[in-house]
């Protein structure tokens, strides 16, 4: 397997799907000549032309609404939303229109569109360009939510998203675009199915259940625990909707202890939903309180020193894990 960047993996996925299916096209702000501010889409307009890689005006509600309409007429649009924070501008198009069409038409209509956007703090982008809003989208029935954690995941999940007949929002970690990792050769097509979590490490003492950017944190925390003589299951959730409960519950039933990590704000976030399902369905296997680790409930600070404090990191994950394993956490 070759090693390419996350950005290249996304680019390849889009190019392969554009070649495979003439109804697929992409639009968004600065996607064609500029190739997005993160240079993810560089070279696509040269191959596929301005009819399929389309620059839009700066009007998120407009081009997302148009994509919903295009999807209803039989195409498969990929929409590029430059920052996840701009989701707030497209809530009606996404939640009231895209998410509801299939249900309200008794299944006669479908909206096979993909909304690509991003998440992640610690890029010094301040409060309006650093949010991780996946829980907001996952709350709305009718939308699927994918959270790739590596170049390979990015490619495999995006290709599955393009082929899905439901609206899918895929969040890419903007800090990960230049990260490299193994990805299968283009001729070995890999589609990563939705609703199948990925167990990356196997251990006995604790389960670390993580999404997107936090998968790397969980993996390094598991290394830290190994140095202390403990082992952890590391589970990449992959998709919040649909959620692979079975893999998560099986792991927690084995270890009896769990930390759920997600870079969204902790309160009412993805960690809350997963923790609740664990408490509900694996209660009698728990040997320690179900623990969550999300971002602080504050706007993401611009100050680097403060910003780094607000998101979960390896050291604090290890510290919390050790407290759970040693029985030092009591919330009675």
């Amino acid at each position: 397997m070759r090693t390419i960047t996350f950005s290249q993996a996304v680019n390849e996925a889009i190019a392969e799907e554009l070649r495979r299916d003439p109804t697929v096209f992409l639009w968004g702000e600065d996607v064609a000549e500029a190739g997005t501010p993160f240079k993810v889409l560089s070279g696509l307009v040269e191959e596929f032309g301005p009819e399929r890689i389309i620059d839009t005006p700066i009007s998120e509600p407009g081009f997302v609404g148009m994509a919903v309409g295009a999807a209803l007429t039989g195409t498969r649009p990929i929409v590029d939303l430059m920052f996840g924070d701009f989701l707030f501008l497209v809530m009606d198009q996404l939640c009231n229109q895209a998410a509801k069409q299939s249900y309200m038409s008794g299944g006669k209509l479908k909206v096979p569109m993909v909304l690509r956007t991003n998440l992640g703090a610690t890029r010094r982008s301040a409060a309006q360009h650093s949010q991780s809003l996946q829980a907001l989208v996952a709350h709305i029935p009718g939308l699927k939510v994918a959270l790739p954690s590596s170049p390979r995941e990015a490619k495999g999940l995006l290709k599955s998203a393009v082929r899905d007949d439901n609206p899918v929002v895929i969040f890419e970690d903007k800090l990960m675009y230049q990260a490299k990792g193994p990805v299968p050769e283009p001729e070995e097509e890999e589609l990563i199915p939705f609703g199948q979590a990925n167990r990356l490490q196997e251990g006995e003492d604790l389960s670390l259940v993580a999404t997107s950017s936090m998968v790397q944190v969980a993996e390094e925390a598991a290394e830290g625990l190994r140095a202390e003589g403990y082992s952890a299951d590391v589970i990449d959730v992959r998709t919040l909707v649909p959620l692979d409960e079975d893999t998560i519950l099986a792991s927690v039933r084995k270890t009896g202890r769990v930390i759920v990590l997600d870079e969204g704000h902790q309160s009412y976030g993805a960690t809350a939903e997963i923790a609740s399902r664990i408490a509900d369905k694996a209660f009698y296997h728990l040997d320690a309180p179900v623990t969550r680790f999300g971002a602080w409930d504050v706007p993401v600070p611009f100050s680097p020193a403060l910003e780094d404090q607000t998101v979960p990191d390896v050291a604090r994950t290890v510290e919390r894990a050790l407290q759970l394993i040693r029985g030092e956490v009591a919330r009675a």
Partner: protein
Amino acid sequence: MPALGMAQDSGVIAAWRVEAGDRVAPGDVVMEVETDKSVQEIEAREDGYIARLLFEAGAEVPVGEVVAEVVATAEEAAAAAAGAGEGTAGAAPGGEDASSDSGSEPIPAPAAEAAPATEPREILPPEPASPPAAPPSTPPASFPGRVLASPKAKAIAAAHGLDLAGIRAAVGREPLHARDVEAALAEHSTAPAPATGPTRLSLRAVTEAGGWQELCARLGGLSARRAALASLVGGAWRREGPDTTGALRVEVVGLHGEPRLFADPDRSRLGAAEPIAEGTPDLRVIDATGSSLREVEGPPEGGADLWLLPAEGEVLSLVLQARSGILNTAGAAAILDGVARRLRNPLYQLL
């Protein structure tokens, strides 16, 4: 000296409300403590007599320090008062801290449980409230009547019939986790079958007992009747049951009168076995034939209990209950059948 506030490290004894020799009961006010905010009345937590007051009123005492000793009897209090001039207060062998705090119940130190009752017992005062700088580890939180344990620990304990309160007493802290219960379980499995084991067997037989009643009429007195019953049951145990070797002790219990314990009663002439003073019975026979009882439920009191209950006319109902590990089902069935046959016709004892 109890901690009455988060940041309190000492308290001033504003006044004593008791003196040496006074009897105290839970709820009695023993002293007033003045903190920087208020004066509070402190109550005794246990019954006893004040042996000594270790500080004068007006003294400032660090939180956690013993301020007075409580002993069980007035005599001990008097003895302590007599010796008070000699020893130093700090070197005294403890004594109960008469104070109480407004929050959690203290956990008695395990050593105090084992101390002989004639010596003053030391019960540690409640832990002072954690300072804010303390690590986020476990304070000894305790809720009256409830053992804090993880769901997994509770599930393991329930599956094996283990008592969480006993495990907490042995471990000395809570909440309990799976490893605490598993450790107790490992210890438990190497010990003999528990007296409180949840599993047991219970068999019931019905027999016509004309032969037994005729024998009782001939034997006359209650003592001879009990000895004869021990002989017949002992014979069935030794000859029909799985264990035919070793000494056999049978206790016969009536609904009235003292129990009688017999050693190897099957080796004596019917009705002639002599009771022995002490020992642990292998089998208890509860003779309720003259009573209104018809059914028994619940676990046996001993390892194996055999009830004789009236049924109809000369028909008796026999119930044999045994804890797991004492008898297997086949052995119990053979013994019970042997007893029934002997009650029908005591001559079976001779075969």
